[in-house]
């Protein structure tokens, strides 16, 4: 990679970051907040104490998990916007499993089953959209979005009905939430006094697994080929339709695991608003992390920081929680805009020529291809 390319890429990324920050700043200004102060609080606030720092990681865990699933889907050529709904169905499955397994069973038997149930729930829900896409060509963005709304209704139905905590019915308070999970279905704390739990380890392990899966196995090779150029993959004997479904199911499974981890690690029961928008934030994290586990982890930590920081600004400066959606939106728009310029040899060459007039000579014209990729 020559020096200009690095400088060029850096400049584009910087511009994108500024655009995103600028967009957010506009909205902050509109509600009378001081953008610089708010950004400062968001970026530095959480580091002020141990709790804040562990909270960053607590938020990062479901983000990593969802983003891993999204990365698998995107790289396989299918777009999954349904992580929210898949998380919810995963939570239902995990909670139901946790509440119905014999209480006497030890943690190391219960937890894997509970998390597996979450994976199956999420995978099943995503599989609906995947199958519709593969068999009937239904646009998966629309179907996964619809399934989000449907899942939300299912979730509320179960929490208000069949799965409601009997205790709520007795006291008559009727809060839609499930019974508390038994001790055997709860992820242990990593740092006492904080909410950080062993789910973090699971997330990191799965990062390695996903990396290995995508780049070191024949399965991953075929998924990536189908995602990069479906036609050529088909011509090479790869079953593209099947790989779309597989990718979607895997993607949903990860969202389901994220849900299961949230319920067993953080909340210890199924409650309303449990997903906290992780399903959507996970998409942003995946894009930000360039759809690669090595990028997703830092991206998730960064987002965890944003989320915790945003919470703090809500309490201290009264900035509404919806602000985080605004930030996510501008970040997505900036990333997808920048993408076009980042991998574009033509634009890069044009820029080189433009700046070359001021600095050095442009690269040789006769050089054909070679090192462009």
């Amino acid at each position: 990679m020559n020096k200009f390319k690095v400088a060029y890429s850096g400049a584009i990324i910087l511009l994108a970051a500024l655009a995103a920050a600028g967009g957010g700043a506009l909205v902050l200004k509109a509600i009378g907040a001081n953008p610089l102060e708010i950004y400062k609080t968001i970026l530095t606030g959480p580091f002020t104490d141990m709790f804040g720092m562990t909270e960053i990681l607590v938020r990062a865990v479901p983000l990593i998990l969802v983003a891993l699933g999204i990365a698998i889907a995107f790289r396989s050529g299918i777009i999954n916007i349904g992580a929210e709904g898949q998380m919810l169905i995963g939570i239902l499955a995990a909670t139901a499993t946790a509440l119905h397994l014999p209480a006497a069973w030890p943690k190391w038997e219960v937890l894997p089953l509970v998390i597996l149930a979450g994976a199956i729930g999420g995978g099943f829900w995503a599989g609906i959209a995947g199958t519709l896409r593969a068999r009937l060509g239904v646009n998966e963005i629309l179907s996964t979005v619809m399934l989000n709304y449907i899942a939300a209704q299912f979730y509320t139905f179960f929490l208000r009905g069949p799965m409601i905590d009997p205790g709520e019915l007795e006291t008559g308070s009727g809060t839609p939430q499930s019974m508390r999970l038994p001790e055997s279905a709860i992820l242990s704390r990593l740092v006492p006094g904080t909410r950080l739990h062993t789910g973090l380890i699971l997330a990191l392990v799965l990062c390695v697994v996903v990396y290995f899966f995508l780049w070191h196995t024949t399965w991953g090779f075929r998924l990536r080929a189908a995602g990069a150029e479906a036609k050529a993959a088909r011509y090479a004997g790869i079953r593209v339709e099947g790989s779309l479904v597989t990718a979607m199911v895997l993607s949903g499974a990860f969202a389901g695991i994220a849900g299961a981890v949230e319920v067993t690690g953080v909340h210890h029961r199924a409650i309303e608003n449990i997903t906290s928008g992780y399903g959507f934030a996970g998409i942003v994290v995946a894009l930000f992390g360039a759809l690669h586990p090595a990028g997703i982890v830092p991206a998730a930590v960064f987002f965890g920081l944003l989320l915790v920081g945003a919470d703090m600004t809500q309490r201290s400066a009264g900035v509404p929680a919806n602000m985080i959606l605004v930030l996510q939106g501008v970040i997505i728009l900036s990333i997808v805009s920048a993408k076009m310029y980042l991998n574009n040899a033509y634009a890069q060459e044009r820029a080189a020529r433009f700046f070359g007039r001021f600095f050095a000579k442009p690269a040789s014209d006769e050089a054909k291809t070679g090192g462009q990729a």
Partner: protein
Amino acid sequence: MSETHGIVYNILSLGVPFSVALLLASLGENFNQRAGVFNLGCEGIMCMGAFLGFLPPYFLKAGPWAPYAHLMGFTIAMAAGVLLGLLFALVTVTFRAEQGIAGIGLQMLGWGVAGTLFRHFIGGVTGVEGLTAWAIPGLSRIPFLGGILFNHNPMVYVAFAMVPASWYILFKTPWGLKVRAAGTAPRAADSMGINVNRVRYQALMLGGALAGLGGAYLSLCQAKMFADDLVAGRGFIAVALVYFGRWSPLGIMGGALLFSLAQTLQLAIQVGGIKFPYEFAVMLPYVLVILVLSLARKARMRGPSHLGIPYNREMRY
């Protein structure tokens, strides 16, 4: 009228105005898609339109400007729609970003900004006056049908008038010809001196204006209030309706009516006291969308063939 008669009448007469928001947003999205771009951010534009449209009547309730408040609301909503459409055009046409994800980004942005501003400036759930119904003289007295079709607030008539208007614009004007060429054969259009990108910008702005208007209708005329989850996916449904209606204004109108009937059915079920879980009734429209998308398979082949593909004149193959 007998009881079932009464129920059917209620469902149908509610169904018509319920379809307005969907209809407007979908007709707007039709222009986008015909030009080759699909804008999932429609949902976000509707959120912004709903919020901004709501502001004038809310603030000018008791004042000299009150009679014009609704008109101002609709105008502001449309203007916001144009701006957001412009933003989306910048990202997807000039920057050639992937349209699906960019759309979701726009949706988050619109939803987030509307919610943030609402929480900050208004905070609670308050209502506004809706528009009074204009009964069309003569026609509204037709038994049964008259009440269903001709006794609504003026925006309903405006929205349905947009159906033939859209048709005319697309098929009988030079601009419509350019839009259709841009979506099906952008290279051919380019070779004949048509600025494909400019046409797409224009279509996205028009689409945004209509989506904003649809959103404003939701808060001003239908719900008569604003809340975070007011739009509830209607923008996405509007996008799906374009496929369902096979990119034709008439088909879209049929789809919008069908979906709004699903929603009024939900209300009727609750009111009628039929034992049906509330949540499942709420699910109906969304399930319907999926069903409709699954069955509309053949339709995709007749759509604008370059839908979703950014145009790049200098592309070498």
